[in-house]
């Protein structure tokens, strides 16, 4: 604190228009030069919250889509046809061994440029926007890992269990949905957790194609307000908190789904 009196006077002045919380950060910026503009400036706060919301939306959509890709892919990998297995394997290896950023650029700049444009409100817009391409690219990227994760889980389900299901008249699809997957899912959860954490971190790449997610919003704010240091720290803490939240929720879920008597 440079001068407690100065800070007190500033607080008294600012209290008129702002809440105590906002006034504190306003004075922190004016006197201490620690500028957390998102905590007192409604414009910056709005932008940051929109960015946070976009990140959450992007993460949740990709999360669900990638798990769906993983489930379907793992089912296809157990197919009788060698070609189907080869294609799934090719998909996995391609997406696992190439940089996600280049994949994103490939989808957005290369594939997006070839796709037709559709009229929307008087002007021609791409059929899939930057948010859409980010969802597609990240879902396929995380999905490739999920296929492998689910496949390992499925392999751990005893053949006898599947045979028992077949003996009870289950079709391959039904046995997969009702018996194999619920068991395999429990084994896969820890690895899945890891991958989903990675997915959240990967959503920052959407910055490169101007999806207005949290990093993009923060960059906008710091280039105008010039508070790089403060925004960087806010960003780091927010991401660590988001990941922490996911890990906590998945941990709870993992415990809730545990089969008594069996622990991996």
């Amino acid at each position: 604190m440079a001068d407690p009196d100065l800070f007190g006077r500033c607080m008294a002045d600012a209290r008129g228009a702002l809440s105590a919380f906002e006034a504190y950060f306003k004075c922190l910026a004016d006197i201490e030069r620690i500028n957390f503009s998102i905590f007192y400036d409604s414009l910056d706060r709005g932008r940051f919250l929109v960015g946070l919301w976009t990140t959450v939306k992007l993460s949740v959509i990709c999360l669900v889509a990638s798990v769906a890709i993983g489930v379907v892919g793992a089912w296809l990998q157990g197919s009788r046809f060698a070609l189907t297995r080869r294609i799934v394997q090719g998909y996995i290896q391609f997406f696992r061994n190439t940089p996600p950023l280049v994949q994103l650029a490939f989808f957005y700049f290369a594939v997006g440029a070839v796709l037709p444009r559709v009229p929307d409100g008087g002007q021609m817009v791409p059929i899939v926007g930057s948010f859409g391409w980010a969802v597609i690219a990240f879902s396929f990227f995380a999905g490739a890992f999920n296929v492998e994760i689910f496949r390992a889980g499925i392999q751990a389900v005893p053949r006898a269990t599947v045979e028992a299901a077949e003996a009870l008249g289950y079709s391959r699809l039904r046995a997969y949905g009702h018996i194999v997957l619920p068991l395999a899912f429990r084994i896969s959860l820890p690895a899945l957790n890891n991958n989903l954490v990675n997915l959240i971190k990967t959503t920052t790449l959407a910055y490169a194609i101007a999806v207005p997610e949290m990093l993009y919003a923060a960059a906008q704010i710091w280039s105008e307000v010039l508070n790089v240091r403060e925004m960087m720290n806010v960003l780091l803490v927010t991401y660590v908190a988001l990941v922490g939240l996911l890990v906590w929720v998945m941990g709870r879920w993992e415990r809730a789904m545990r089969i008594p008597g069996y622990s991996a």
Partner: protein
Amino acid sequence: MMPLRSGTDMAVLLPAGGALARPVVDARAVGFTERTFSPAVLGALLALFALAVAAAEAHGQPASAARAGILATLWKWAPLLFSGFLFNLLVSVLSMALGTVAGLALGLAQVSLLWPVRKGAGIVTQFFRNAPWLVLLFYCMFLLPFDVAVFGITVPLPAWFKAVIGLALPVMANVSEIVRGGVRSIPIAQWESAEALAFSRRQILWMVILPQSLKRMLPPWMNLYAILTMATTLISIVGIQDGMTLVRSALIAEQRTELFIPMYLMLLTWFFLYCYPIARLTMALERRFAVRA
């Protein structure tokens, strides 16, 4: 079908280890691991590339003196783009070296006997592991000074070196976890018997535990290197000229839409050709070093 060895004849689930151990048994029988290199995947990638080039040729105007064919154009740009790709690899090697040294220290701090050191190292590790790579990269690019004073000598800190540090931070945290996991995976009896032979704690760690855990740490370490190599493209976002930037510049210079897909595919193929063998080798090592319970 292998007999169940899970200890009970009413196993609800096979131990996952059994499913993983099976390929090892098969590999021993055959003499080498199956599918050490999958020509199908590479073939599919090359086919896709050829298809993209063919489609682009058909789509765009016919090649003329002024407008070279797609393949010719790719060939013209390839040396420049490849130098950018090599720069990516250079950054990956430097970051890995820096991150490994720092991560080894942090990982050993995580198994320290002093609880403040252990807890502190644990928090640092978790923090850098859970923060997005790109945000850490931004952090280093913007907040590290342009030059540092070492013993009175001012050493300039170029942007690319700041990027190397930015990428080394998450590597450090991941290596730290790998080291901790590797040390923890050695049975406690090893510690006890070494203690019984009057080794000091430092001697036990360096002469007994680490040499054994090294082979357990190698596969995840290689996996991390592959991830890092792919992450090096992030430096293009913070304004350092790498393979990705050069591809974009080349596309802007050429001003031809039909080049977009082939050129990005070319870069993707290079990364694939570099990372895929590492992934195969990692898997092979994992199988060889699998713990036989």
